[in-house]
């Protein structure tokens, strides 16, 4: 497809959208779906149909709007740009919403011609017009939860229909890819990424531009690009949201990576527990292929690229890049020693770029707005924004995108609106089972790669669990240890046996069998597992224990005989 055709498609879609007086967006991402968004969406559609005003208002299914704890969420956007958010939208509320925003047009053929259920819906809508409950469900846009966010990655999520390529195009989709392949050399793309300061969002924070440059320089006819969508941290769902809610953005990032390093084939590796993400990515690939965005001679250039989906079987360790490679190759998902790194010897021994979903999703915006624009966001060494899945004991939980360097205080007390009830904020856990806890005393810490590391935690992929004063930290640490015991691949002995021993020591303490010296022993075993394990899983498995021992030692000490 040529640039002109691409623009035409985008323009046509934009014009179509502008014809409506207003558009009603209903989130159908997993969190809202499980709160009943499927029924809400149906009620909105039925209501619109019964109103016979489909030419004035459009109901759009979109992705996550952020405040998942208040789902199903619906947003009404006027043609003027004015927006109103509604929380906890049940089917009754959906009808009230339609009654308020959609004029009940006179049916052209007269009431008799209408199906009985439509007549029934119309009378319900009439009745709903008199209700006044809707107002109570309005979510103020001035909440810090919204105002503190800076949206780069999630910019279009919640606005764009994830199953509609045209909608993505209307939002400027694939312009970055077009720019890369027509105006930039692969080297320039890599340099741009380096200058932007983007670091891998999968956990380790490796500079993306450097990684791409390695692969670009590797000599090989065949190279691969892999998007790591295995997201295994308990409570984390940033990557799932991205894949479900704006799959084309991830695909576009992947294609730019492919162009930059000289790859002709790519794989999305998505965990099997994400059926919707798998479906949406597959649809996106098919749609892009039909439109000539994916395949041979992309957008009229001599760049060829194809992508496929591979489904993981639910092993946390398969998110580790070498285990992931084995899994795609059809082998048992076990990590191997590095070097060689995937950049020199990856999939089937070929140079391979592996990037996290969020990393890939950051790419189009960086190319379009420029590295300097991106590098202005964030801190010295941690540039840009980070998406967090805010979970745990907090009033507002959900998905947030914040600039690097924001303080934990702002996230917990302002965006999260504090811990509910009488309890108090105690600690924030980042990095999931590989991370650590940041206590109240460090609540003013700016959240970036370096500071979190200094505190014995890691940025991780974006899980942010808030713990209140009612939680026992040894119990909490045990939860993560149990997770690591289950998820260890079993290849190396410190992780396979050592994690079981750490768990046994925690159990001993928690069951009141603790002895003097047990805490020192616990630390010793943690250090051994950390320093001798083969891969990141074992090397970081003791972190939750070590970090709670560091900051909440008194909670362990009371478990010892006095």
């Amino acid at each position, binding site marked *: 497809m040529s640039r002109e055709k691409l623009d035409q498609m985008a323009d046509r879609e934009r014009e179509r959208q502008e014809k409506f007086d207003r558009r009603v967006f209903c989130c159908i991402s997993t969190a809202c779906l499980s709160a009943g968004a499927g029924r809400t969406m149906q009620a909105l559609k039925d209501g619109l149909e019964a109103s016979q005003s489909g030419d004035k208002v459009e109901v759009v299914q979109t992705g996550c709007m952020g405040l998942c704890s208040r789902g199903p969420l619906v947003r009404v956007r006027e043609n003027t740009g004015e927006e109103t958010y509604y929380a906890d939208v049940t089917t009754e509320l959906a009808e009230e919403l339609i009654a308020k925003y959609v004029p009940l047009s006179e049916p052209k053929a007269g009431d008799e011609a209408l199906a009985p259920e439509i007549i029934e819906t119309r009378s319900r809508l009439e009745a709903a017009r008199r209700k006044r409950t809707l107002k109570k469900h309005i979510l103020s846009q001035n909440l810090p939860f919204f105002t503190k966010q800076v949206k780069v990655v999630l910019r279009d999520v919640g606005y764009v229909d994830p199953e509609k390529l045209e909608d993505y195009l209307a939002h400027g989709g694939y312009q970055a890819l077009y720019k890369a392949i027509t105006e930039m050399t692969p080297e320039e793309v890599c340099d741009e990424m380096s200058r932007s300061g983007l670091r891998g969002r999968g956990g380790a924070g490796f500079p993306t531009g450097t990684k791409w440059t390695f692969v670009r320089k590797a000599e090989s006819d065949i190279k691969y690009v892999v998007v790591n969508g295995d997201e295994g941290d308990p409570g984390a769902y940033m990557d799932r949201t991205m894949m479900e809610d704006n799959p084309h953005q991830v695909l576009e990032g992947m294609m730019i990576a492919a162009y930059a390093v000289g790859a002709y084939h790519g794989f999305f590796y998505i965990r099997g527990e994400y059926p919707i993400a798998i479906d949406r990515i597959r649809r996106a690939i098919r749609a892009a292929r039909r439109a000539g965005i994916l395949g041979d001679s992309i957008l009229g250039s001599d760049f060829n690229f194809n992508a496929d989906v591979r489904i993981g079987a639910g092993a946390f*360790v398969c998110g580790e890049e070498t285990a992931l490679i084995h899994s795609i190759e059809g082998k048992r998902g076990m990590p191997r020693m590095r070097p060689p790194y995937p950049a020199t010897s990856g999939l089937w021994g070929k140079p391979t770029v592996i990037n996290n979903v969020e990393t890939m999703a950051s790419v189009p915006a960086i190319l379009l707005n420029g590295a300097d624009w991106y590098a202005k966001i964030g801190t010295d060494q941690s540039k840009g924004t980070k998406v967090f899945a805010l979970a745990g004991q907090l009033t507002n939980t959900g998905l947030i995108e914040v600039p690097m360097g924001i303080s934990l205080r702002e996230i917990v007390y302002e965006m999260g609106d504090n811990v509910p009830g009488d309890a108090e904020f105690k600690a924030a856990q980042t990095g999931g089972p590989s991370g650590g806890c940041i206590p109240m005393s460090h609540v003013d810490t700016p959240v970036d790669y370096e500071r979190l590391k200094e505190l014995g935690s890691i940025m991780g992929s974006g899980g942010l669990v808030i713990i209140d004063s009612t939680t026992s930290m040894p119990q909490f640490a045990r939860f993560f240890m149990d997770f690591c015991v289950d998820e260890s*691949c079993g290849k190396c002995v*410190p992780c396979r046996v050592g994690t079981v*021993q750490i768990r*046994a020591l925690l159990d001993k303490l928690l069951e009141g069998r603790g002895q003097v010296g047990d805490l020192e022993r616990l630390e010793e075993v943690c250090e051994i597992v950390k*320093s*001798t394990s083969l891969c990141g899983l074992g090397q970081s498995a003791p972190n939750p224990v070590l970090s709670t021992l560091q900051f909440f030692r008194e909670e362990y000490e009371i478990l010892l005989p006095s």
Partner: protein
Amino acid sequence: MITLTIDGKKIQIEEGTNVLEAALRNGIDIPHLCYHSDLSVSGGCRLCQVEVEGYDQPVTSCGMACAEGLVIQTQSERLTAIRRNLIDIFLADHPLDCVTCDKAGSCLLQKYAYEYGVKETSYIPIYSKTLYQDDNPFFIRDHQYCILCGRCVRVCDEIVGVHAIDFANRGFESHIATPYDGPMIDSSCVFCGNCVEVCPTAALLPVSRLKRGREWDLERVDSICGYCGVGCKIEYAVKDNEIIYAQASVQESVNGSFLCTKGRYGWDFAVNPERLTQPMVRRDLAYSLGISTENWRLPKVSPLDIDKPDVDDYFIPVDWETAYEIVSSKLVDIVKESGPDAIVGLASARCTNEENYLFQKLMRAVIGTNNVDHCARL
């Protein structure tokens, strides 16, 4: 060639060799359980860590490629502590049954526990596996002793090409399994026993050696396998003049550390009373040649129709000289009487290439016929 220094010793080695292999080839033993020179690298045992100049942290030597100028130390206080810790962790999931274990004396875990002075585990012993499988006549699988080094899995996949076994389950529940933990016979296993050979512990043992004595009770006899022309070197472990088990003899052999099922398990003929150990001549021929004074003629009933014919009823033993004498004079007679083409020679695949070459030479040049063929072509 690359030059590096290990423990102060300058070592030259081909590029691409890993540091552990370079050390082993030069007589420097770095403790290792999962590494095997003929198999791909795993990295699971973590024991082979060494100090590398310029690196803060110890490096896993089996996973590090030799590079020009590397300076390696294989012994240090820190390394000893790490290795002790690791052996300690291994023993937390390995019953300390050394006093009754058949593998005592050749078990690598025992060896390193001895070398590093780890008498028992400092951990709470928690055993992950209890399965005991004796589902075939060749070897047993006693999972409680398995340290999951994965050597058996790799040998079966990479050398034998069968991939009958692999890791099943995850983490502490991992164990080596046939598909669905079924009996060995239902898997694709060809019972070559190479997994048994590379297993460092008592998790895989030949049935024939169970309770038949330990390493120091056994004598070693080097031999060449007689089953085929490859001529694998074989080492028999012998006690009281009986073979206890066979294994590949590693040094300078055509077969490296591996054998096939026949060589490894098919040696019971060695002490079978029915085994022919010297040449025999049929009794009537022996009489006509004057070797025997006893007149004899073939009985009415063919020996093929007798259930267990006694060889002594039909043949008498002679020495090799006599046997050769008879064969050669008979061949000369036939050639004289009927010409060389009255003779056909059929060679055997159990002979070596050289032997087969000589045989066709004998037929063509000495006898004078092209009537020579080989069982492998039939």
